[in-house]
């Protein structure tokens, strides 16, 4: 490189970040002598002349006048006349400005987008050796942290301590033992346009803006009349929405009196009758439904149906009923009606109240039929379109409160039906298997209420036993 020099934006003063060439006094290609003015440069504070420090030629102007460049940027290239243009060009292209960025200037960093890993490790896998008193003998850890680590079985040696010189604190152990944070983020909000003539705290202004309250002319209760959030609350239309200390005292608790509608009257009458006239007795049993659940999963896939668990129960009950004709009955005063096929009622919690439409001849239906039928009935029930035919002829109703979180309950018989089956929840229970090992199995809680006028204890028990064996081995009722 022969005698090529860069002419860069000078730094005049500690604060100068950039400058503008207001005029090139020496033109491109012109030579100049030491002491002559080369260019005029302006900053936001001053305008100054750049004097040549040596004799030379301005071979190339890189930054035209009127353009603003940061300190250190290339403005022009000086070179002897015998330097070929190509070299001047190359020099200009490959010039790198010095990093004159300050901590606060153009090069200051922006927010790092990626969330940061916390420095505390997760608690170790359960297969690590048990943590005891001696596990942390040489560890820089506070007494309380050590105690907590032992109590929670946290391997403190994996924790990077936040205390001085890496000392592990109680807080570090506490954090290491806990599951990851699950934060519900609200996100950014617009900053309300600020009217500085209104003297209110930032939050008060925000609350007012959110609730469409005009604070003009409002005098606040804060120092020097500043409006505070309490003042805004007092201006809100439903000031009663704020929790008040004497809510209980001031609340109006007079009841609203509503007359029962027709359906409710009917239900009330019938169930009162049932409970007071029918001699109920109860048989309770827990069914192992592990196999049924799996059976349903596969069965639904194979048959391309969406039969509910209840639908499977309906099918099983239907089969069991025809095997026990003495339970498949209706009771009318002193007459017993024995049905050849199973009509099983399904209790539905419709909007108007409890209703129990009947699926007819269940024993002759396959699971997809049953599913379709129950779906239909539910729809009709919810749209108030059940007819009398839907409701009569049943011998047993299945009432399922399991999905409501109930363990077990006893239902009231729907006369003239002979019995009702109350299905509770499924729980996971440790069960002893045939080989003596223990396994968690799903257990369904079932309670049958029988009309003792027609069904004896033994009959009911036998029915339940059959039902149990079918449900526990679903292939039996398919």
């Amino acid at each position, binding site marked *: 490189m022969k005698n090529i020099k860069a002419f860069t934006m000078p730094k005049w003063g*500690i*604060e100068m*970040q950039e400058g503008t060439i207001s005029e090139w006094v020496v033109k491109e290609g012109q030579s100049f002598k030491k002491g002559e003015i080369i260019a005029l440069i302006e900053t*936001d*504070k001053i305008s100054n002349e750049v004097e040549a420090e040596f004799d030379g030629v301005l071979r190339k102007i890189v930054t035209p006048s009127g353009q603003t460049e940061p300190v250190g940027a290339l403005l022009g290239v000086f070179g002897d006349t015998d330097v070929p243009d190509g070299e001047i060009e190359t020099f200009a292209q490959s010039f790198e400005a010095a*990093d004159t*960025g*300050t*901590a*606060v*200037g153009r090069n*200051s*960093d*922006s*927010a*790092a*987008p990626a*969330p*940061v890993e*916390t420095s505390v490790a997760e608690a170790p896998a359960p297969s690590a050796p048990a943590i005891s008193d001696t596990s942390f003998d040489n560890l820089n850890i506070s007494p309380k942290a050590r105690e907590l680590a032992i109590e929670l079985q946290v391997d403190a040696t994996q924790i990077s301590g936040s205390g001085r010189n890496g000392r592990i604190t109680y*807080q570090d152990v506490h*954090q290491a033992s*806990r*599951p*990851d*944070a699950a*934060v519900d*983020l*609200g*996100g*950014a*909000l*617009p*900053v*309300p346009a*600020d009217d*500085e003539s209104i*003297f209110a*705290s*930032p*939050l008060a*202004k*925000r609350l007012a803006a959110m609730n469409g309250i005009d604070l003009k002319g409002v005098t606040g209760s*804060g*120092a*020097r009349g*500043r409006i*505070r*959030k309490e003042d805004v609350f007092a201006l809100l239309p439903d000031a009663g929405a704020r929790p008040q200390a004497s809510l209980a005292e001031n609340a109006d608790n007079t009841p609203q009196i509503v007359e029962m509608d027709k359906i409710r009257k009917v239900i009330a009458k019938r169930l009162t009758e049932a409970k007071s006239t029918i001699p109920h007795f109860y048989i309770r049993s827990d069914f192992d439904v592990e196999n049924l659940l799996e059976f349903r999963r596969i069965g639904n896939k194979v048959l391309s149906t969406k039969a509910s668990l209840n639908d499977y129960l309906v099918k099983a009950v239907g089969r069991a009923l025809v095997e026990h004709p003495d339970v498949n009955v209706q009771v009318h005063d002193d007459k017993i009606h024995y049905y050849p096929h199973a009509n099983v009622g399904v209790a539905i919690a419709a909007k108007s109240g409890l209703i129990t439409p009947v699926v007819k001849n269940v024993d002759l239906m396959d699971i997809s039929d049953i599913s379709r039928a129950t779906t239909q009935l539910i729809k009709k029930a919810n749209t108030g379109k059940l007819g009398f035919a839907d409701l009569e002829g049943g011998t047993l109703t299945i009432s399922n409160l399991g999905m409501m979180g109930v363990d077990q309950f006893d239902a009231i018989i729907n006369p003239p039906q002979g019995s009702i089956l109350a299905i509770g929840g499924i729980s996971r229970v440790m069960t002893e298997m045939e080989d003596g090992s223990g396994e968690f199995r799903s257990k369904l809680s079932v309670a049958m209420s029988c009309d003792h006028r027609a069904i004896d204890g033994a009959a009911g028990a036998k029915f339940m036993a059959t039902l149990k064996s079918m449900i526990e081995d679903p292939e039996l009722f398919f």
Partner: protein
Amino acid sequence: MAELMLREAILQTLFAEMERDENVVVLGEDIVGGMGTEGGPEAIGGIWGTSTGLYDKFGGDRVIDTPISESAIIGAAGGLGLTGKRPVAEIMFADFLGVCMDQIWNQMAKFRYMFGGKTECPAVVRMIYGAGLNAAAQHSQAPHGILTSMPGLKVVMPSTPADAKGLLTTAIRDQDPVIFLEHKALYAEKGEVPEGEYTIPFGHARLAHAGEDVTIVAAGLMVKFATKAAQGLAEQGIGCDVIDLRTTSPLDEEAILDSVENTGRLVVVDESPPRCGLATDIVSLVTNKAYASLKAPPEMVTSPHTPVPFARELEKAYLPSPGKIADAVQRTLAWK
């Protein structure tokens, strides 16, 4: 509205107040510049450009260029204040507080109290502070923490040109001694400034950014960094309240506590070292008064316990930054 640099807003305010009240007197080193030289007065016009032209308009009796003697300057401000004038004294670099500490700490701050409430000293001491321009250890400090701890002083830290004008106007009209801190790296910062005179009350923070997830408290230059961090975080769905304190004494406690009661998370940004500073002051306020609302321990983003270093890379590592603030926000959100 006009777009002004912060330094221009200061100059404009000084002109306006000196015009309005003949008792306003300005004093400091090189605020005129060129006194006793061939170049003549106003050869410099103040090294920061915040007093240019005052001497020409108001004369040498009210615009007093002083020798380098901080104790005398600030002491004189105290004396001027006690005897019915409204002095605005400048300390060229806030670090020189060390040279005149007595006149602020033992004299000006305590006159009213020691003299049984019978005196008034409406002095303003403007100090140019802060790091970011590689001015190194003795020309880059931020002494707002020490000054805030002194009873009898009010401490103001504007972050925008509009705030600088309103707060300086209030400071000059205030009857108590006021320390007015101007960040040297904010001097060239531009912003919309309303025309005409207006005041901004002390102890009245500004909400620079709004959100419901984290509260960030900052003052001076740190407000710019905090706002930048908040904007970046908003793109990730994280909403931040950025509270620009404007004055650290008196402090807008309410704005801070109301926000933390809403968000439950606090990050305080302060460009001074961590011990016994503004950040610790605010964290302790919040933990004491809003403990029940906190969902995570409060975080502080401060400079380290070191003097301000010289080299560019070092100073950058020294100062808080939008990135460090965003990291702190994420830490409060990761609390388990």
